[in-house]
């Protein structure tokens, strides 16, 4: 479409942004890469030396590494499932002409504006607390033994909290896509005899595919590095039940002051993220074309 001239001009115009972005990403990344090959502990200053792949060996053979990896994937998968399904249903609901539509939409978006630490604290102390929480109060009203959420279902609790935060994002993107669906297409499908369910699965869902893909890709990037919610609520426990890779790296570096090991963990996390991204693009990426 573009001529050679406009292409050159476009490249020149983009150059500053690209250089800035590259510097922004490449310098920290290469520093991390550099540290990951160093024996570098803050408790032993001045004793840094090159150790090759030792840090990686330690990190990968850490007794908690595989469980942290599994936890990361469970967390991402769980939150994605809840937000995509919930977001689609909410979007369908919000697309209906309902009373007080504006207010309802605002309320739905609200959780997105709450800081992760704050929302985790609210959930921990006001909703899921075994004594003072709303859920335990409801349980007692129905004369049921209240659940100690973070002790009995720690991973599930964190998934719920994070899903609550990301639901508005998914809902908003999917709602926008929903509203861009041509009204005549729905009418045509209606005349062709498609009831609500066929309409949803044959017409609406394919139309939403691209938006859902975007939601999955963006959320995955952020969900791979969930940290604040875990720190504030379970602190990775009980045991290592809610320790994901980010939290494991935090424990290595800040609790043991081992910069080299933590950097190796960081690089492992980057590689993992890339593997996940490649898989995702393979599975859902074709929705983004054309």
């Amino acid at each position, binding site marked *: 479409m573009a001529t050679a001239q406009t292409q050159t001009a476009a490249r020149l115009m983009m150059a500053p942004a690209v250089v800035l972005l590259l510097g922004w990403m490449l310098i920290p990344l290469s520093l991390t890469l550099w540290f990951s090959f160093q024996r570098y502990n803050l408790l032993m200053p001045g004793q840094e030396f090159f150790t090759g792949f030792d840090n990686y060996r330690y990190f990968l053979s850490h007794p908690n590494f595989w469980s942290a990896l599994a936890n990361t994937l469970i967390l991402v998968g769980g939150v994605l499932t809840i937000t995509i399904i919930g977001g689609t249903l909410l979007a369908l609901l919000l697309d209906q002409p309902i009373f007080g539509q504006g207010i309802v939409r605002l309320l739905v978006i609200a959780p997105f504006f709450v800081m992760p630490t704050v929302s985790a604290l609210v959930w921990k102390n006001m909703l899921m607390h075994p004594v003072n929480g709303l859920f335990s109060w409801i349980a007692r009203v129905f004369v049921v033994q209240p659940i100690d959420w973070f002790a009995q279902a720690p991973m599930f609790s964190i998934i719920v909290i994070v899903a609550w935060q990301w639901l508005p994002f998914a809902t908003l993107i999917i709602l926008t896509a929903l509203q861009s669906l*041509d009204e005549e297409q729905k*009418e045509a499908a*209606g*005349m062709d*005899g498609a009831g609500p369910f*066929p309409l949803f699965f*044959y017409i609406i869902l394919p139309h939403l595919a691209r938006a859902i893909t975007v939601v999955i890709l963006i959320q995955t990037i952020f969900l791979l590095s969930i940290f604040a919610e875990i720190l504030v609520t379970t602190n990775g426990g009980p045991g290592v039940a809610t320790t994901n890779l980010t939290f494991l790296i935090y424990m290595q570096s800040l609790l043991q002051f081992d910069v080299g090991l933590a950097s190796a963990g960081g690089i492992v996390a980057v590689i993992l993220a890339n593997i996940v991204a490649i898989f995702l693009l393979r599975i859902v990426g074709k929705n983004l074309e054309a």
Partner: protein
Amino acid sequence: MGSITLDHVTKSFGAVTIIPDISLDIRDGEFVVFVGPSGCGKSTLLRLIAGLEDVSGGKIMIDGADVTNAHPAQRKLSMVFQSYALYPHMSVRGNIAFPLKMEGASKEKIDEAVGNAAAILNLTDYLDRKPRQLSGGQRQRVAIGRAIVRQPKAFLFDEPLSNLDAALRVAMRLEISELHKKLGTTMIYVTHDQVEAMTMADKIVVLNAGRIEQYGTPLELYSKPANRFVAGFIGSPKMNFIEGAEAARFGAHAIGVRPEHFTVSQEAGSWKGVVGVAEHLGSDTFLYVKSESGDQLTVRTSGEIPVRSGETVHLTPMDGRVYRFDAQGHAIAG
């Protein structure tokens, strides 16, 4: 199997009444065209028949059965939308098969029906393409294909040709007419192009501001317009209207003469005028004449007339071709 009756149908959007009161009888197998100026309610009327809008009052009957409150799918009508409304993520095959799939038809039956429709519409080579890989005319045909596989009681078309270029319009117009002959199914066709209306219709409904001005065959509307609106709307170029003293001589508030109903002479005639512009098209000549009484008249004559701009001509309306209208615009008989 496809008569449609509207019985005092009204439609309002909130406080705005779009269709005050329409009664209409469409017989089985007829090709009926709704024409009228933009915004007169053609699409709204079609959507009421399709069931995509609820009526505010009155009854709609298909084959004698009251369908006023029936769901669009239950009415067994097919609609071709102006935007085609094809399903973009399905192939042509998927699009055409969709109504049958929703009916729960068997795989063999679907394949056969899709094959037939594709053969009728020359789409066989495109069955595996997506709609966006098709030209405008091909998309149009896919939309028609999707409409015919259901074997509906009637087809509803909403300005199906308005997105196509002039040559393709003429071709598709013929194709739709031929399709109507082949299938013999009732068709309702909305357009604001009166040439389309005249060439395709068995009957034309002329709408104006949500009212039926006249309902009849194309030639009836042409030769016996019920009022000034229909007289002006049907026929191209438009009918000439003359008011005042000249009209009073005919005992009317206004008289109308079609451009093709003048005899042009350079010596003598009823009205004298000066030619403003003369368009020589070869087959026809259009003269834009300013008459002595100040009226602007369009005249259509044979191609060989040697009249030029600035010359004086005499115009005489042909016998029995002067339409007379009263002050309300109604035609005066006789």
